[in-house]
């Protein structure tokens, strides 16, 4: 091979060019690693923070169900039983464990070991089973959030952790309880079943999950039929004219309108014009339905497009009307694709927060909603509310609620993926 001067220059430059080639490629890999690293960091961060919220701390207390306190009249009427001073019972039982606590302030600190919900639990137990009155029983009661946090971080209570709302005396009591096996960590059922509460140890996502499910039911019931029908019309029947074009442009633009704008729409139309119930899953579901409609329509059109024209032609050729061809043959074939789109739209709706803030689903609601018109909140809104709360114990609740939300989303997306894999047909 003869080296012309040009070839020489090329060969000299090659090394540099290959180096820059390598560099460029590694930048690409770096970018991907960075993006995936963010993802892993985000998810790991949430999981690590949230896992501890699935357990809660309980303290065993000997309770004497004193008839004089619970039912002084001896009538055993529900009314009387439910009005008794159960908090006093709880406090007395605590004092019995530590008889040498005399100082008023110390007593108050002692009471703070247990959640304020302990009294309610006692009441429920007595109402369910009035035969308890007069007996002495060991009852496991929910500890307060400070104790819960301290027990999770430092199970032997040996460090003096004053900063977490537990002072030295309380630590000592907790050490005693621990030594006598009167403190334990159990699965946190409250977290899954109950509604919101100001007390972190009593707060749960039950109400929020119910609210989300109710809203999603409304969303699905509205956006799937409407979306599918719109998709069928636009894809199969719409004439190519101005009006159709306007509809199509409209749908594409709606898909990129910020979600908070839909919230404003819901506030001024559904709440102020139609006077619907504020904070209700009905309104939330309607707003989310309008928001997910474009997604469902676009997915539906793609699904219809993937059905080959030969199916339609075959149906028409044996005498089916155009509507029959579509509803009997094309639509069933495109159903998996449409459902996949709907599920993905629902997943988006489930994670959406901003529009729900606008229509008042951000209120503090303790009860688990039972119907579409009840005031409710939604899972992502609950996360937002808890993330704003100053109590440290809410931080793990927030992360745990996120874990639940992500679990729902993963399930929905998995179903969508599996459906696509299973029913996808190559024509």
């Amino acid at each position, binding site marked *: 091979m003869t080296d012309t001067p040009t070839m020489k220059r090329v060969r000299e430059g090659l090394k540099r*060019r290959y180096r*820059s*080639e390598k560099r*460029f*490629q590694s930048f*690409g890999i770096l970018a*991907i690693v960075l*993006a*995936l690293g*963010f*993802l892993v960091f*985000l998810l790991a*961060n*949430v999981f690590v923070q949230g896992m501890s919220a699935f357990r809660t701390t309980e303290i065993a207390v000997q309770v004497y169900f004193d008839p004089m306190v619970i039912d002084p009249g001896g009538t055993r009427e529900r009314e009387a039983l439910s009005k008794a001073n159960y908090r006093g019972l709880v406090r007395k039982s605590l004092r019995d464990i530590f008889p040498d606590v005399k100082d008023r302030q110390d007593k108050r600190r002692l009471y703070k070991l247990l959640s304020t919900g302990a009294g309610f639990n006692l009441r429920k137990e007595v109402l369910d089973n009035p035969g308890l009155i007069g007996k002495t029983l060991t009852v496991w009661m929910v500890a307060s959030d400070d104790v819960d946090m301290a027990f999770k971080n430092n199970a032997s209570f040996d460090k003096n952790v004053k900063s977490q709302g537990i002072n030295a005396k309380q630590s000592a009591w907790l050490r005693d309880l621990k030594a006598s096996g009167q403190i334990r960590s159990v699965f946190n059922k409250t977290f899954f079943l109950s509604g919101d509460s100001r007390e972190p140890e009593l707060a749960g996502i039950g109400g929020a999950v119910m609210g989300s499910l109710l809203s999603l039911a409304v969303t699905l019931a509205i956006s799937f*039929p*409407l979306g599918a*029908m*719109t998709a069928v019309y*636009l894809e199969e029947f*719409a004439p190519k004219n101005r009006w159709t074009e*306007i*509809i199509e442009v409209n749908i594409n*633009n*709606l898909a*990129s*309108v*910020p979600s*908070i*704008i*839909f919230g*404003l*729409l819901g*506030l*001024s*139309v559904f709440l*102020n014009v139609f006077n619907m119930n504020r904070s209700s899953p009905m309104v939330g579901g309607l707003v989310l339905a309008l928001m997910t*409609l*474009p997604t469902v329509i676009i997915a539906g059109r793609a699904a219809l497009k993937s059905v080959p024209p030969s199916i339609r032609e075959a149906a028409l050729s044996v005498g089916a*009307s155009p*509507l029959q061809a579509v*509803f009997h043959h094309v639509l069933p074939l495109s159903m998996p694709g449409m459902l996949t789109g709907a599920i993905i739209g629902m997943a988006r709706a*489930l*994670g*959406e*927060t*901003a529009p729900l*803030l*606008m229509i008042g689903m*951000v209120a503090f609601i303790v009860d688990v909603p039972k119907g579409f018109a009840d005031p409710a909140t939604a899972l*992502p*809104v609950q*996360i*937002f509310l808890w*993330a704003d709360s100053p109590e440290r114990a809410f*931080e793990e609740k*927030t992360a745990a609620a*996120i874990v639940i*939300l*992500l679990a729902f*989303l993963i399930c929905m997306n998995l179903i969508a993926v599996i459906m696509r894999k299973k029913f996808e047909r190559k024509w």
Partner: protein
Amino acid sequence: MLSSTVFFVLVLLTFAGFYMGRSKAVSSVSGELRELQSLPGYYGYYVAIWCGLPVMLLLGLWFSLEPRIIEMILISEMPERFAGLSDIQLNLLINDIHNLAQNNITSRQVDAELMAVAERYAALKQTSAWAMMVATLSMAIAGLTYGQRSITPAFKASNFVEKVIMAALIASSTIAVLTTIGIVLSLLFESIRFFNMVSPADFLFGLEWSPQTALRPDQVGSSGLFGAIPLLTGTLLISFIAMMVAAPVGLLSAMFMAEYANPRFRAAVKPLLEILAGVPTVVYGFFAALTVAPLFRGFGVNIGLDISSESALAAGAVMGIMIIPFVSSMSDDAIRAVPLAMREGSMGLGATKSETIKRVIFPAALPGIIGGLLLAVSRAIGETMIVVMAAGLSANLTANPLEAVTTITVQIVSLLTGDQEFDSPKTLSAFALGLLLFVVTLILNIIALKIVKKFREKYD
């Protein structure tokens, strides 16, 4: 309770209508189905439509009008001392009556007169429920009999049914347009009320935002200034930071995926990246507020910088992570749309792969990439939860990313959560901000879609 029973009965009647219509059609030709003009099922649908559709319209009308009519009757019968109330007081009163009728807590002292009104309200509601039941059921039965009677072998049921279905299809396709009209009208309507109180020039060019309005004239600390510029700059600052994160990462990963990665790597990594877009924004908000912001702040303390705990940097960086997949998938599409011939031409001349990408593919795909970036910007501007949770509330006119700024969406949320009165400029300003947000994102989207479309046409 009554209404759900009625609803159930109506559904049952509609189903019954289907079977009655079909069997009538079949029996009218005594089983010789060839004699029928349409398939027997169509006769069933025909009767079902007559049974169900008018009733559904009636129900819709009823539910939208009932509260108003009851309210009007109540107001006209109101005791003397409630006369001459303003609209707001009247609203409150009616709210209390609702609550009283449902045994809820009311905001005022309950007396016998009010109690009587509440009882009257409950009675009216009851009457209305019964009237609705009678009206809908008789209408359904009338429809059923009419439909049933018009069935003859020669009757063209299929034409009728198909026309109704077609009408339903067309009606549903207009919902999207109606939604847009609803958005525009509701935003415009409230914004006009706002601009009657605050001049548009003050809103668009004012440099100070402090929407607390004075309730009493002597109140201090409530200036009621509605200059949107600090919000706009705050929004742009955070979006800019987000793009500084998302653009390089998204673009480089798109280039790698489109040009270097083998199909298996692509198939594995692309969905993983898309997860970033699927994570709810409230999760990012939590992450930004409780992890990233303290991290930045701690880092700032270590190197002697004062970074606010609600810095634009933290909110922007996390938002950037969120929009990486938008940028990468749009750029990926644009890069893959560049024809193979251009690649081969460049490589045939001896260029390395990276040289081809940088000098040939990137410039060719640039319009598509810019379109994608614009879409990402519009998404960043409209993003709400991350900034609500991680950015500040006070409007600072600053370009310093270490300080706290606020955004349009943050202000909308803070103005509209909690109690609202719909005649104060403070509440209405949220709608003006919403209009601004809508217009800005719409313009960005239209430009972006135009660019992307033009670019596609070039290579198709």
